[in-house]
């Protein structure tokens, strides 16, 4: 069978590991969307860390006299119904939003990946059982699950994170299972098996690293979904506890002022869009960069 030969790259004096990541990095850099998304994400992260140092208000300081004011020089994004500075709250809420996105994906990802890999690697009855359970989770209306969790554990950011995390388990499990099935069939897995490697070694050293790219891509995209879901939960009154400046909650607080003070709804709304957008764009770019088929 004829095989397209990948030519040996004979570049000298370069660390191969660095070289490997350099290739990905290079492709990633070529992808304009990924660059824009990455810069935005970086911007958000940096702002969420150092931003609070530069705001001149306390995010929770009530100032009834100045409530519901439109944007002005003192209050760039105006004030809310307690006279709190929306700009300050947005900045302080940024880390929360990123937190929710990040940790819920970590929870969903770790559990989902674990079950997906086990399912795909061992197959058989175990696979059937795990996948049926995932079907149950998938068929179970997510918002109800979240509602139940938040009701059991109480409304807080942590619980929203748990809820959204559980939401995303089936997605990870399915993707990882699929990739595991492909990787498991590859000959190098048989080769290490023939060397006497244990299942644990095969899974952790050989399968996981090779199913990483779909996981990473899924994770970035899921962060976006998580942020949206969390804000939806806040909208239903199940989000972070007040007066936490979580954006979904801010948005929900502002809705009865929509006519009077649209900025209360527009500002957090647009911020959510921007963050979600950034992760989506980046995730997309990453997918293209990691997928050799998408190479121009």
């Amino acid at each position, binding site marked *: 069978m004829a095989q397209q030969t990948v030519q040996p790259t004979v570049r000298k004096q370069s660390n191969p590991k660095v070289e490997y990541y350099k290739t990905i990095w290079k492709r990633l850099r070529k992808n304009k969307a990924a660059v824009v998304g990455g810069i935005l994400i970086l911007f958000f992260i940096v702002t969420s860390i150092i931003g609070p140092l530069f705001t001149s208000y306390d995010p929770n300081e009530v100032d009834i006299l100045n409530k519901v004011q439109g944007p002005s020089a003192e209050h760039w994004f105006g004030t809310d119904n307690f006279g709190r500075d929306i700009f300050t709250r947005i900045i302080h809420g940024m880390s929360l939003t990123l937190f929710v996105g990040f940790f819920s994906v970590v929870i969903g990802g770790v559990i989902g990946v674990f079950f997906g890999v086990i399912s795909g690697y061992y197959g058989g009855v175990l696979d059937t059982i795990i996948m049926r359970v995932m*079907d149950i989770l998938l068929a*179970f209306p997510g918002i*109800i699950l979240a509602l139940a969790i938040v009701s059991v554990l109480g409304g807080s950011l942590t619980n929203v994170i748990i809820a959204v995390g559980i939401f995303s388990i089936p997605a990870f499990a399915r993707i990882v299972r699929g990739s595991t099935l492909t990787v498991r069939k590859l000959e190098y897995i048989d080769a290490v098996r023939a060397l006497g490697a244990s299942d644990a070694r095969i899974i952790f050293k050989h399968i996981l690293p090779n199913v990483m790219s779909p996981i990473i891509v899924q994770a970035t995209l899921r962060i*976006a979904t998580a942020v*949206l879901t969390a804000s939806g939960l806040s909208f*239903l009154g199940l989000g972070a506890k007040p007066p936490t400046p979580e954006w979904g909650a801010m948005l929900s607080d502002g809705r009865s002022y929509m006519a009077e003070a649209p900025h209360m*709804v527009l500002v957090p709304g647009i911020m*959510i*869009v921007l963050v979600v957008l950034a992760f989506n764009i980046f995730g997309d770019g990453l997918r293209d960069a990691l997928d050799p088929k998408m190479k121009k």
Partner: protein
Amino acid sequence: MTKFIIRRVLQTIPVLIGVSILVFSLMHLIPGDPAQIIAGEGASDKTVEQIRERLGLNEPVHVQYFSYISNALQGDLGSSIRSGRAVMDEIQSRIWVTVELAFYSTLLAVFIGLIAGIISAVRHYTLSDISIMIVALFGLSMPSFWMGLVLIQWFAVGVDWLPLPEFLRMRPSGWGDDWRQVILPVITLGTGGAAIIARMTRSSMLEVIGQDYIRTARAKGVSERSVIYKHALKNAMIPVITVVGLEFGAFLGGAVLTETIFAINGMGRLTIDAIRQRDFPIVQGTVLVISVIFVFVNLIVDISYRLLNKRIDLN
């Protein structure tokens, strides 16, 4: 084919049992006593106890579950502990509106998503591709409830060029009275789906366009138009259809926010209200029905796979 369908239907049984156990245990884990909620803030303990007795809530949980499931197997999903109406009736009067909403939203999503995705794929890396994808990403990133609120604000407070309060009229049942009522909720719900489908179509088309058989078609002298719309699209539809199925499912379960904002009396709101009121039978009923529909939609998806690509062996 029939054999396949029967098998798939049988396979859903364990899933549904799992779902019912899950919802049953969740509902019982949640703090909040239905008797107390029915009795209200100031009812005496005696009243609460009487209600609890009447609802059979004093039985051990597993007894409650088995009596529930044995009734359910006989087609009796019980009755609402709040209104006393049969769960089936409650669901029946709401399900169609939700299904319709999901259906129209899916149609919108597919229609816009496919067109955008194909254009984007065919002209990939051109300006139109990039702008379509940017718009799609925006659609995807917009919280649906936010979009709903903004739409309502526009239409209600009125921009002069769109003075159509009819858009906002709440419907007594279904969409009977005025088709325009359907527009805003469907836009609200369908936008995200359209974006997802557009992106899926694009990547699927790009993948297919690189396949050997597309080259074969060109080598036969087939026109470019035919290559795209005949040879590529039919193959590219397969992953898109999966997404369509999942989206439909998500629309069904996830319409709560849209239903709340547009005062649509659908399954989502029924479920949420029932959870808040600890109306166990209703919650169990709605979750089961939504799960059944979800499973059913996936079955349809699998059948359409088969119709699109005879290769897929249903067994």
